[in-house]
């Protein structure tokens, strides 16, 4: 079996375990390439169906074409969408683009807190997230089934053992489990799979007339394009095979301090 098929079969197995073990399950969908691949894998796992709602945490600072793309795919693939927004903070205007919060604080309220609000509201006990180990170092330490306490905090110093595809599926009331079916994929694997399966991705990933493309998608004030001439999926694959620039180099919030991202993730960030 080739390695992409190995990755795919493992992810399908994890998705099916999650669906069997959690009565209130949801999948986070950031509209990016990873969670769109995850969505595709869900359709593989459930024979064309997506039997749980998708949660999009909308900061309102997303690149507008992302929302268009989201709504289009929801219709075409018959998806149930739940949108989470931190209305209170958005109303107060204490955000980074307004100059009233740091980048990290802004991520904390508009993404992390908004996520907590939507999880609490819908009583989700299992949340599928498309993070990968190769994205950044704290994610490299993740488990496939990763418990979060009632404050959504990640106890990274005391994670459950995880072996032989036996996952932590028993948890205390009020806590939830993050499920990471793409954990073992690399950025390159994701693109190779998009190519193999012909998965539609948002055009922002492809180089525009100015020879720039997004490698990682987030909010427009904190996400930069990279110089690139890759206009097709095979061209992106070729580019990634030769690059030595990290994937999230365009994500400004990661670079604020040495452990900025670790702190965010301990507090419940994706």
């Amino acid at each position, binding site marked *: *079996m*080739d*390695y992409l*098929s*190995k990755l*795919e*079969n*493992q992810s*399908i*197995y994890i998705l*099916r*375990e999650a*669906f*069997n073990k959690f*009565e209130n399950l949801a999948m986070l969908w950031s509209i990016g390439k990873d969670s769109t691949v995850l969505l595709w894998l869900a*359709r*593989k*796992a*459930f*024979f*064309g*169906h997506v*039997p749980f709602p998708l949660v999009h945490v909308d900061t309102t600072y997303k690149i507008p074409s992302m929302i268009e793309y989201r709504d289009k795919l929801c219709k075409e693939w018959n998806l149930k969408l739940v949108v989470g927004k931190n209305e209170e903070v958005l109303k107060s205007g204490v955000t980074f683009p307004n100059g009233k919060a740091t980048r990290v604080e802004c991520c904390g309220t508009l993404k992390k807190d908004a996520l907590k609000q939507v999880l609490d509201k819908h009583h989700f006990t299992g949340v599928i997230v498309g993070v990968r*180990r*190769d994205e*950044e*170092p*704290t994610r*490299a*330490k993740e*488990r496939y089934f990763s418990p979060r306490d009632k404050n959504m905090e990640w106890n*990274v*110093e005391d*994670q*459950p*053992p*995880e*072996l*032989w595809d*036996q996952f*932590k599926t*028993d*948890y*205390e009331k009020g806590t939830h489990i993050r499920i990471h079916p793409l954990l*073992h994929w*690399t950025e390159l694997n994701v693109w*190779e799979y998009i190519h193999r*399966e012909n998965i539609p991705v948002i055009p922002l990933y492809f180089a525009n007339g100015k020879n720039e493309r997004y490698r990682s998608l987030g909010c427009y004030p904190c996400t930069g394009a990279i110089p690139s001439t890759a206009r097709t999926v095979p061209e992106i694959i*070729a580019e990634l*095979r*030769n*690059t*030595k*620039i*990290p994937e999230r180099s365009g994500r400004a919030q990661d670079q604020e301090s*040495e*452990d900025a991202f*670790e702190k965010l993730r301990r507090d419940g960030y994706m």
Partner: protein
Amino acid sequence: MQIAPAEQLKIVIVGHVDHGKSTFVGRLFNDTGSLPEGKLEQLRKAAERRGVPFEWANLMDALQSERDQNITIDTAQIWFRTPKRQYVIIDAPGHKEFLKNMITGAANAEAALLLIDAHEGVQENSRRHGYLLNLLGIRQIAVLVNKMDLENYSEARFGQIEAEYRQWLTSINVVPTVFIPISAREGDNIASASARMPWWKGPTVLTALDDFKVSEVPQDQPLRFPIQDVYRFDERRILAGRVESGSVKPGDRLVFSPTNKVSTVKTIERWNAPAATSAAAGESIGITLTEQIFVERGMIAAQESAPPYELTRFKTRIFWLGKRPFAKNKKYKLKLTTQEVECEIDTIEKVIDASSLATISRKPGEIFVGRHEVAELTLRTRRPVAFDTANEIVATGRFVLVDGLDVSGGGIIAEDNYPRRTHDIHTKSDNIYWSHGKVTITQRELRNSHRGCVLWLTGLSGSGKSTIATELERELFNLGRQAYILDGDNIRHGLCSDLGFSHRDRTENIRRIGEVAKLFADAGFVCITAFISPYRADRDLARTILPRDRFFEVYVNAPVNVCEKRDPKGLYAKARSGEIKDFTGVSAPYEPPADPDVELRTDKLSIPESVAKIMDYLGLQTGESQISI
């Protein structure tokens, strides 16, 4: 453009704390040109800012607490490529305290690099990790004797450590692939041969890596297809799972453990995949069957000719990671593929210190396996488990143990003289006859003047099932009929007291009631069942247990708001407050019958009217017969 490597190999780096695992990984990445741009500079700057010397280890030790203490706490993964293949490098902590993280890392690997400090020599966790790698089933192990720079690159010192550690590996039946002298800090024998060790004629680490083999899932072994779930998203009933060994194709006759029911594969199901006539080990697929039999998660499908063992006692070798000891007379959950079963220690043969092989002696009466200890012991399970020994089929020969909410240990099933079912499988399925007494059903029916049957009442809590059932039973009794109620609450006190309210437990609850109702009907009774029985598929299953003309579905139908207003047991209030989970109509679904034999709108009909309607229906049904009720 670089040629894409066609394969991927997962390597774990293990060894005693401070023997240089994380440093080695940092160096390996640097020397193979695999570091992301700016990473080295970023790490050097960070070290400068903190006023500490630069450490290669900081590449992997991502957590602040790890950088503070200069140790690896949790396992991490990182990728790099050689022209031959892509590697996933799993760094595992060497500190005994974090053994569960070491095991998490190692259990996912196909090969291991075990580091030993040339200066410190073989230490406690060098030996323990070697032992555990073997227990975890990792057969490809290269031993790297690190920090050769501290020993003046001495060939003699290398030979000494190799001899000592080789002896240890031999004592635990491990044959290492190779021993290599290296210095991670100085970069000797990592990516290129070291000029400082001209005496070394063996491979560099990079060559040794490329010499490892990628493990392929076993396709020539007997089929093991554990059922992960049963889906009914559309008309088809798909049994989903991953083929763990062997292969499966349409037309195959499969036996499902532990019920031993047999059916034939109709189709292999995949979504948006090239059509293929079979599915092999490693593939997550679905199958449909030609004859519908009862199948649920936890069953294992196998070819009839080569089924797994199926027993409640088996010998194991386990490791324990729990904060509380693994103790006798306590109940644990055993998870083996998708099977979950309650288990306890039957007998402990011996508890071992994995770093010395010394048997740990306990005080009399203290029977347990402590944290970080390994043991050879026999487990006893509450229900039969389908398994193979780890030497036969890996995936069905290993398991984890759950203490409370936490995975706390794991193990493999050891060889023993287990009875094979190859010959007795037919004995088991064919030789259990339905025993017929001398009294026939016709004679019973003549004596009773009516037929035995099942009236299956289904509906929401509070819809009136129990009240109607009670009145109906009384009416029938007064008319001289043999009638008996199987009531939901009563059954849950006894027959089904081990079941909860999850989807799976509800299914099992209904299955048992169906079987008991059948016995009552056989005995000539009008058996009235009063259960919510919310899932259509479960009721359909109960229906299949009885002939069509002896099973009547009665839909006791009242809107949920009416039921909630009645709330005779105060359950809706508790469900709304969240005190009760999975409550039908509130937090769990109810699937109404598509075509009930009788429908009672109890929001419109009184109890006597409802009872009369059923009596009418029974009269009509049996009107042509001499035997009526």
